[in-house]
């Protein structure tokens, strides 16, 4: 069930100069959250922000009543959230959207870039729990942008590319050598910049591998009522926040 709920900031853990984990705690229990679900976060005390901001759930701890987000500070709202002091109140509407399709006892490739790695801790945990083998491939410009490797390495094999070659293979994520053995994988999950996701989807489709992509369209409501966040699909315009954000790549007309 969707809910609007008040949380307090426990901490903002900055991972590098532009991204951080925002940890929130509630007094009451937290709803069930599936990998790929997101929240609409109200930015507190912000002078020129009107709408909520959609952010994927990075982690949840039902016992501690904590929920956390992996956020890249790219503008007003994401910067503001990263500057909140412990104790600040944050109101969120969640869980929103659909989720990645879980697979049992399969080989899964998870490809992320930018803030698009956010849903992949929960997804990795879920897939492992179902007996699937997880391989991560994250792309970034430099090693500084490759974060949380300890977290992801525990959940699966961790690979990465950097454009400057400072970590992992040098180049774009799509040129990683792993794609030579793409047939090894039963499914590809991706989230990140559109061009990256399109390229990954193309590789998967060419090899007849199911690919699920999570879109980050501009949103106003996050609950499927304003129809601002649409993306064209083979079945007409789909509403990303409620029919997505996760789509099977072959459904998308992008």
């Amino acid at each position, binding site marked *: 069930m969707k809910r*609007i709920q008040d949380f307090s900031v426990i901490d903002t853990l900055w991972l590098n100069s532009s991204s951080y984990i925002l940890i929130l705690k509630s007094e009451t229990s937290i709803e069930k959250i599936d990998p790929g679900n997101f929240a609409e976060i109200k930015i507190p005390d912000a002078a020129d922000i009107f709408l909520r901001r959609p952010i994927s759930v990075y982690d949840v701890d039902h016992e501690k009543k904590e929920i956390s987000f992996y956020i890249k500070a790219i503008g007003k709202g994401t910067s503001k959230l990263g500057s909140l002091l412990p104790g600040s109140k944050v109101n969120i509407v969640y869980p929103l959207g659909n989720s990645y399709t879980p697979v049992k006892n399969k080989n899964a490739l998870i490809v992320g870039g930018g803030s698009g790695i956010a849903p992949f801790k929960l997804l990795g945990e879920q897939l492992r729990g179902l007996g699937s083998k997880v391989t991560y491939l994250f792309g970034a410009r430099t090693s500084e942008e490759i974060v949380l490797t300890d977290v992801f390495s525990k959940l699966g094999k961790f690979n990465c590319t950097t454009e400057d070659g400072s970590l992992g293979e040098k180049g774009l994520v799509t040129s990683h050598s792993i794609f030579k053995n793409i047939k090894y994988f039963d499914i590809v999950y991706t989230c990140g910049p559109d061009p990256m996701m399109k390229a990954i989807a193309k590789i998967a489709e060419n090899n007849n591998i199911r690919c699920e992509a999570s879109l980050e369209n501009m949103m106003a409501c996050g609950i499927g*009522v304003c129809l601002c966040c649409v993306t064209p699909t083979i079945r007409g315009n789909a509403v990303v926040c409620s029919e997505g954000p996760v789509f099977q790549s072959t459904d998308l007309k992008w």
Partner: protein
Amino acid sequence: MVDLQVDIAGLKLKNPVTTASGTFGFGEEFVDFIDLDKLGGIFVKGLTIKSREGNDYPRMAETPSGMLNAVGLQNKGVDYFIDSIYPRIKHWDTEIFPNINGSVIDDYIAVAEKLNEVKGINGIELNISCPNVKEGGMAFGVSCPSAIAVTKAVRKAYDKTLIVKLSPNVTDIAEIAKGVEGAGADSVSLVNTLLGMAIDAKTKKPLLSTITGGLSGPAIKPIALRMVWQVYNAVKIPIVGMGGIMNGNDAIEFMLAGSTAIQVGTANFIDPQVSEKIVDEIEQYCISNGISKVTDLIGGLITE
């Protein structure tokens, strides 16, 4: 106990709080957040005779204390609404108002005729003010003769409560309100969005695929309030007021300016519980101010 009931040309709403078309889906999207039975009414997403895909993405831009949208009436057509959606939502104990749109008068008539036959639907909102598509009829809403023509035509096709939704993108909204009153409207609702535009200085491109779009939210509240006041001083039919209402106080202001009922729009995106909260806040205001009937607020602005 405060009597919260209001009357839109004979149609009774349990309270003055309704939700604005295009900002509340078909209501069912909000059941996790509020009790829909608490609302005076729900104006559902704009309908056209045929299904429409709407405009291209991007359709939205945040602006200071507001937002622009260029949705363009994406909907599955009036038949789909009647056959597949309405049966799902009709059990709620609140008035459901379809919002009807067309690019030519015959389209409006066709939609109105179909809705006229639907039992349980007691009123429609005739949208002659959507700035985002030809089919939204802003062309009708910005000229008095055409507003009158479409209202007259729909009036003939529709027997129940007819609310005409006015455009704020005009020189003299009171004149148009008087026109549609004369043409048989039971009520006017205002305002629809103001035509606006946003540009990304970095890319030098518009932020909407359609270049211009409709501005809503608190930014437009002073303009909307002024228009309600002007229309209140010009017509006798009840007014459904809206434009940037975010809380009970805003709603009270619209009633003082002359609204019989109000619509909550963009605020639903910020707080999906806001419509129900506004019902409570209006009641609370009445209690604090010793007002026993909410209708006493209508047009109650003290100007001298």
